[in-house]
Structure formats: C-alpha cells, structure tokens
C-alpha cells in the first residue's frame, strides 16, 4: 500500500514524458496514490517501476494537489481521469463547506480511497462518482441498473463497502478488508455507462 509521499516532491524523479499535469501553478501538496494491483497478481518477474505524478486542480485551493504513483505498467487505467475529475468537482474546500460544520476534504483520506480503488478495480472497470463526506473522508459510488455499490473511507473508521440490489433487496455492509475478493467481484460485475459525475 502506498503512503503519503514526503520526500519525492520537488525533485526530478519524474521523467518529463510521464508527467500528466492537469493544471500547474503555485505550490503542490504531494500524496502518493494508485498502489500497484498487488493482491491479484503473483508476479514472477518484476518489470522496472516508473513513478508518475498528477496535479489535481481544485477550485478554491491554492495550487494543485499533487498525487504520485508508481507502476510497472504503461500508465493509469482509463477510469482514473473520470475519477479525478469527479474528485476535483466535488472537493469540500473549506471547513463548514456543507453549512453543517463539515470538515474540509482530507487529501490523505482521498489518497487512501484512490489506493483502495486501485487495488479493487480492473483496467476496464466503470469509474465511480467520488463524493466528499462531512468528516473529511470520501466515498466512491456506482449506481448501475439495479445495483448500488459504495466504497467508503471515513475519517475515524475502517474503509467499508455497501452493496444493495434494488431488484432482490439483497443488502451487504462490511469492512473491505474482510471481504476483499468479494468486493472486487462486485465491481467487476457492475455494468455501468461511464459515469463519474
């Protein structure tokens, strides 16, 4: 699992051709995201890893928040752009952003969510919408056909998933770590139009 990066920001570790900066200006807050998919792949050989960076521009935040990730693959999966756009659009910038005493969205909790998604989702998975929580956390959500699925990263509880089938009434809620492969299957079995709102 990736951790928040402290030392690599501001160095030249990123090859220029690998930098995908959506917006650049001002200072950046570094955070490492998109851990390699390590749970399903039993690697026999280890290709050379490369580190990528993304500047996430958020209205009301001075300068982009920089996310970094390391991959031995060719780059980010297709769902990432939609997810990052969704984060950028919905970020809770200030304290009390909801008028009900909400905490500002915490970049570390967003990174935690992105790392979880990176582990759970396949290359061709449908992108979820990302919605801020009042405690500074964030959740990813898919609502496709009769299926509702959420990956929730709150500030003070373990990451959890919630699934509801509107046709059958089947409902599940648990910590992700306890049912990791099952949550992967739930995501894989979703059939969504590309929607990250």
């Amino acid at each position: 699992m990736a951790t928040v990066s402290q030392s690599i920001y501001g160095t030249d570790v990123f090859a220029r051709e690998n930098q995908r900066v959506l917006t650049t200006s001002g200072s950046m807050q570094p955070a490492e995201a998109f851990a390699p998919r390590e749970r399903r792949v039993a690697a026999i050989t280890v290709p050379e890893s490369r580190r990528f960076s993304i500047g996430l521009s958020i209205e009301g935040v001075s300068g982009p928040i920089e996310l970094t990730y390391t991959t031995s693959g060719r780059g980010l999966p297709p769902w990432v752009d939609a997810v990052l756009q969704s984060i950028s659009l919905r970020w809770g910038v200030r304290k009390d952003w909801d008028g009900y005493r909400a905490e500002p969205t915490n970049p570390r909790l967003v990174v935690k969510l992105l790392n979880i998604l990176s582990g759970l989702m396949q290359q061709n998975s449908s992108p979820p919408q990302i919605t801020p929580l009042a405690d500074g956390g964030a959740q990813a959500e898919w609502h496709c056909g009769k299926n509702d699925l959420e990956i929730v990263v709150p500030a003070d509880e373990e990451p959890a998933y919630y699934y509801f089938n509107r046709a059958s009434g089947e409902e599940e809620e648990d910590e992700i770590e306890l049912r990791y492969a099952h949550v992967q299957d739930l995501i894989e079995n979703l059939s969504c139009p590309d929607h990250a709102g």
Partner: protein
Amino acid sequence: MLADDPRDDPEIPNADRLFRRVRPNQLFAEPDGSQRPTSAVFKNAELSVNIESLMVEQGRPPEDTLTGFPNEFLTAIIAGDVRAYNLRIVKDTAPPNDPAHRLILGRKTNAFANAKVRSHHWVVAPPKL
C-alpha cells in the same frame, strides 16, 4: 452543545418530516438527468435537520431552511424512519438556537444513509441535467 445524555425528543411525532439541505457536490445524476442526494448527505455524526411541525408552529414554510443557502436544495425524510434505525432526534442548544432545529444522533450506518436516499422526497429539487 448537547446535554450529557441527550434523549429522543418525544414531541417530534413519527410522521413529521425532517428537512435537510443538500449541496450540489452531494448530488448524483440519474440516467434520465434527474438528480438525487448521495448517501453522504445522511452520514453526518450530528445530522442537522429542521422539524416540520415546529416550523409550522413558527409560521415558517419548509423552504425557510434554505435561507442563506440560495444554491442548495431541500430534501425531507420521515422521523419514524429515522427512529427505526435506533437513532435519536434530540434538541440542539448550540447557536444559532433555531427552535425548529434538531440533531439526529447515533451511528449512521451505510444501510441507514442509503435507505434515506431511497425514501427521501425533494421539497426543493435540483434541476434536471
């Protein structure tokens, strides 16, 4: 500010509507372009709501909840549906001391929040996209 052991307010009937503002960044767009709250709206540890019967007593329409929040929308859930999840509707003595204001206390599970998404009714709905 809350009492040490805030009790459910028995003056709030189960049939009462509870009004809650919804910000644009907590909406989800359905395939037909209509928008609904995401479950995040109903997950606050202290979930603030205005109580319909108390607003009526004060001669205030539900839309008064949106005063000062012109870009937000207003949804309603039912008091009895909240209590069904072992949550309490309690008085809040903190500013702004709105007499129609209450807090829903207790742990909001994802199941609770999503059930409220399925049962909520817009009072002031967002436009179709």
